[in-house]
């Protein structure tokens, strides 16, 4: 069972695709099927639009790709992508580091974790995107308010995972190492952190797409750049092809970000096996 499945908290993780060794199809065959599935869906979409459903509501793949092509060719899309990526990454970094620190602090301090427990659960239950108007007031219309929204979404997820990871550390291991005259810092570095790394990374994995959501929603509320702004703008102009085109780009971004964090995780596992 993965760490997040056990927490059953905030946002559940999508199930990992089964790594079944008896599977009859290899990775490249599967990639082929995935491509095929996408093509079939696109054809059905193209076929249905204008015949079964009004083109005005669902647009059609050809228009969407034409739109993507125009935006790419004239380069206008790139500043929006760059802004959204920047906000997502910055918000994620800030939120993740604060979440880890808060998780370690409360995980190691019985007094403060008991003191703050009800408040943290109350805060966690709030729909964080509802903070967006406040953040606009506090941080203005610029990048900062979007970064703050991405950060706050990240923070709670990473905090809860880190906290659980630290609570999950085997007390007997801690006692054993305490008997070796370990200081609190040594306990943290040699037992607590290595044993909660898996939990913390699960937090990162769940949090990163949420940071992206935070950035996009922030842009939708008040902005003049970014993919969220572009969705908002296209929608306001009844430009369904534009909306789908931006959604497509956001989807691609999410896949790339997920890939990056998977890579970081496997690098870390590799490093752990070599060094510890």
């Amino acid at each position, binding site marked *: 069972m993965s760490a997040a499945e056990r927490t059953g908290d905030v946002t559940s993780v999508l199930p990992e695709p089964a790594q079944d060794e008896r599977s009859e199809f290899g990775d490249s065959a599967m990639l082929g099927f995935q491509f095929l599935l996408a093509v079939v869906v696109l054809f059905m979409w193209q076929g249905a639009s204008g015949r079964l459903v009004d083109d005005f509501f669902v647009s059609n793949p050809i228009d969407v790709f034409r739109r993507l092509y125009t935006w790419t060719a004239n380069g206008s899309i790139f500043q929006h992508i760059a802004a959204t990526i920047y906000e997502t990454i910055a918000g994620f970094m800030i939120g993740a580091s604060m979440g880890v620190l808060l998780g370690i602090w409360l995980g190691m301090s019985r007094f403060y974790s008991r003191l703050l427990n009800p408040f943290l659960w109350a805060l966690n239950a709030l729909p964080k995107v509802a903070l967006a108007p406040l953040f606009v007031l506090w941080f203005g219309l610029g990048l900062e308010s979007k970064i703050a929204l991405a950060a706050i979404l990240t923070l709670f997820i990473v905090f809860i995972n880190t906290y659980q990871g630290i609570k999950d550390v085997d007390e007997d*291991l801690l*006692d*054993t190492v*305490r*008997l*070796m005259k*370990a200081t609190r810092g040594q306990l943290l570095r*040699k*037992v607590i952190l290595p044993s909660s790394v898996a939990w913390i990374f699960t937090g990162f994995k769940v949090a990163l797409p949420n940071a992206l959501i935070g950035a996009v929603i922030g842009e939708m509320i008040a902005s003049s750049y970014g993919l969220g702004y572009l969705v908002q703008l296209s929608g306001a102009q009844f430009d369904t092809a534009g909306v789908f085109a931006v959604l497509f780009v956001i989807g691609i971004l999410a896949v790339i970000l997920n890939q990056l964090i998977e890579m970081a995780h496997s690098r870390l596992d590799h490093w752990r096996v070599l060094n*510890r």
Partner: protein
Amino acid sequence: MSMIELASISKTFRQKGEPVEAVRNLSLSIGEGEIVAVIGPSGCGKSTLLNMISGLYRPTTGRVEYRGERVTAVNTSVGYMTQKDNLLPWRNVRDNVSLPLEIQGVPKAQRERAAEELIRRVGLDGFEEKLPSELSGGMRKRVGLARMLLARPETLLLDEPFGALDAQLKLAMHQLLLSIKEEYGQTVLFVTHDLVEAITLSTKVVICSRRPGTIRYSRDVDLPFPRDVLNVRFTEQFGEIYNDIWEQLRQEYKEDRL
């Protein structure tokens, strides 16, 4: 001077609100350099006793003293090999064994040399790179033993250290323990269910009653050192001690059945 002094200690746990009395009114004095074996029925509070001496548990009543001072926090003068192996699962054998020196700040090359020496002495050379999950139960126990010995604590607490080993290995580990003890003169307290092992290694055997544990019988073992761990059991004196303690144990376990 006595090294460990237990003055009428009791320990009561709460299990789902119900009090469970694990140890009752137990007194024991262990002198410096003694080797004491504790035998007793399962669940009689032997592990609890070691946990109190190491300062991991507080006694409910009574005092635990170490070198004349009351134990109120984790007692870092003892090395404790727990019943469960408690190895760090993400560290290989070498890094587990060298952990105590790592914590003391000994440079890497030096601590690894020391660790490898002990890994060889517990018969695990060739397994330095293995993770605990890749080892057998008996191998993990030996990793724990090596790790404890590496720190050179002045007192050793061992909870069923050789239970999971085959007869040959057991003898080798007995020899190792006695030779380390001869070199460094530690005080040793160990728990076992094996009476031959208890007498072979110890200067005193203590029998613990069934729960709530208290001392039922204790007897000095005045076999001379150095001992031949294989052949000492065939001596007449050993046989006499064995029969005496066995008689006591038989009664203890017989009561247990009823």
